[in-house]
């Protein structure tokens, strides 16, 4: 600080800014400004068409605290995340290890597992909705069972989480594959000379060495899972008995903001979600010191 910049440093500074300005601009206009505006809106009772907003202070937040629907949705969202995140990570990790070996048709398998990621969520939801259908669905008819997969309040959220797992595995797998490229071959050779079997290699070499990737996937997947919306929106409607036990926080936000035009209260819901995600992420960032190895 206080030092005078050389002309080279100066030009680097200027060019640096020029290079990041397009991104910064996009980030500000599309993310940061709307975020600030949302937080602001959460203190208002909004009028129609953005006119006549009334400042109500913390009233929306007080309402949130006493609103059992919000807490139920938070719990639904957490249940979804608890199922989706760990299972999808474990399966994806095993698949990645498997598909990292020399295997016939390896690329084909990689492509197949990644495919669900490419399909539009709306299309996925429509197909699964019919698979799950209790009367005409493939699942019930093939296994000769009579389960209300998506209308039984006790299991509907898990049925939806299963779709979430199915659609995200490929994505997690690709990240793990990228991480695995970083692990030097000779570690495995040395280990197998010492008599370590596949399982030991996985636990003692692979996982510690790709822990930064695992950590990254964990953080982003938890955030993603907490924001689950489209699957639920497409599969569950108002007259579904599982409605109350499946609507997620983002779903509630959508309901209040766009269906009922209570934008202020909707904003409050989404700020609460932001806080929850913030806390979860901070906890993970602190916790990573215990298990993530960066070299």
């Amino acid at each position, binding site marked *: 600080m206080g030092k005078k910049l050389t002309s080279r440093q100066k030009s680097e500074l200027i060019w640096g800014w020029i290079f990041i300005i397009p991104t910064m601009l996009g980030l500000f206009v599309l993310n940061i400004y709307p975020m600030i505006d949302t937080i602001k809106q959460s203190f208002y009772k909004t009028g129609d068409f953005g006119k006549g907003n009334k400042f109500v202070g913390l009233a929306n937040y007080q309402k949130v605290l006493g609103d059992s629907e919000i807490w139920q949705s938070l719990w639904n969202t957490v249940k979804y995340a608890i199922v989706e995140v760990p299972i999808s990570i474990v399966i994806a990790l095993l698949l990645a290890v498997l598909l990292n070996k020399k295997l016939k048709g390896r690329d084909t398998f990689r492509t197949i597992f990644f495919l669900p990621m490419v399909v539009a969520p709306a299309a996925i939801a429509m197909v699964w909705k019919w698979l799950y259908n209790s009367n005409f669905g493939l699942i019930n008819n093939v296994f000769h069972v009579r389960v209300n997969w998506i209308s039984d309040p006790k299991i509907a959220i898990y049925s939806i989480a299963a779709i979430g797992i199915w659609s995200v595995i490929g994505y997690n797998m690709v990240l793990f594959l990228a991480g695995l490229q970083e692990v030097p071959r000779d570690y495995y050779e040395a280990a197998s000379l010492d008599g370590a079997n596949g399982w030991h290699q996985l636990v003692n070499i692979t996982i510690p060495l790709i822990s930064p990737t695992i950590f990254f996937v964990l953080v982003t997947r938890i955030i993603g899972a907490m924001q689950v919306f489209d699957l639920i929106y497409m599969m569950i409607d108002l007259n579904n*008995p599982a409605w109350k036990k499946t609507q997620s926080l983002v779903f509630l936000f959508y309901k209040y903001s766009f269906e009922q035009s209570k934008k202020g209260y909707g904003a409050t819901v989404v700020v609460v979600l932001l806080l929850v995600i913030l806390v979860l992420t901070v906890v993970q960032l602190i916790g990573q010191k215990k298990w993530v190895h960066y070299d």
Partner: protein
Amino acid sequence: MKKKVLAILLSAVTVLSMIGCGNEAPAAAPEAPAQEEQAVAEEEAPQSIGSSVEGELSVTIWDEGQRPGLQQIVDDWSAESGIKATIQVVDWNNYWTLLEAGATGGELPDVFWMHSNVAQKYMENDQLLDLTDMIAASDKTDLNNYYEGIVKLYQLDGRQYAVPKDIDTIALWYNKTIFDEMGVPYPDDTWTWKDFAENAKKLTNDEHWGYAIAPGNNQEGYYNTIYSYGGYVISDDKKKSGMDDPKTIEAIKLFTDMIADGSCPDLATVSETAPNELLQAGKTAMCISGSWMLAGYRDNEYTAANCDVAVLPYTNDPSDRVSIYNGLGWAAAANTKNPEAAWSLIEYLTSKEGQLKQAELGVTMSAYIGTSDAWVNSVPAFNLNGHMDMLDAKLVFRPYSRDTTVWEDMMIEKLQDAWTGDKPVDEVCMDIAAEMNADLAEE
């Protein structure tokens, strides 16, 4: 090593944010809710509702099924006026999201459909072109020619903001094959709601149910019965809920009893497979449907071959046969760049001539009284008198207030406990009435 990891993470973040962006169009092809169900979901989420350009009219609607017929009428108008007009279809859910965004940003299409759910809000906020003076000056439009409830719906403080486009009626659709199989005579105008429930029991076996209720769609179901029984949903001054009225409760019980005795599928079943889908699959003998479902039943081979339609039952006397009706309105944007052309188009679409064409082309029944006769012959497979005759029944306008969806959603949600039998009907209805009164007080 550290750097490489960082590089991977960074590129991953970039990919993620791109995927995130792709995901953020959750409205892509959502399901149309309760009303006007047949709106065809677009392949991709539309990005705009259309906007006003000078010298050309943009028209936006939400029903793909009606577009070909309406475009034909609009083309006739273009031939007369020499102004080009194109109809854009945006599916039901996106329609309202985009229309609201458009209204907030001052970008609305010239001419578009209005609906009872939100009309009040748009009128109060001066989003719709005030048509009062133009109607007064017109020799083609006289509001007395239209069904009163629809005209009033688009009125605020004596000003008219939209002209009625169509009217719908509710009727009893039934599967002739199942009736023959079970030896039950087809429904006709002598049926009471009690006959309806008794016959539903006779029509039930392991293969199919007698009747399937649409728990999320009040207009195609219990609202008709509530008013037929003499109950009500909302008071005329829109201040008080009628859900705790004993007659209302009795009407709801008609359906909960049917679910309890098995002649109507349980909530889980109808929430996964809509009643009209059950009818189309031959899984239910009867289904109460709005006239807007016609295109769907016509285009389904099974229903076209096996089904027909009759009037709804009555309670004590044929005079208490009720059809809950609703009607769309043609409205123009308050800030349209072509007010004269917009009005000219609306005038044409709602004139006797335009309304006759609308019925003839089988688009919908028309809001202009006496112009719908041609509609009856638009689909030879069905005897559409079932729907037409409902126009002579007691027409009750679909209950609404300023923020209808708020209490309507609440009601649908709470009624679940009644359909499943988890709570007694009286208790559920009292609870709904209390909360609805609170909602109405807030409006």
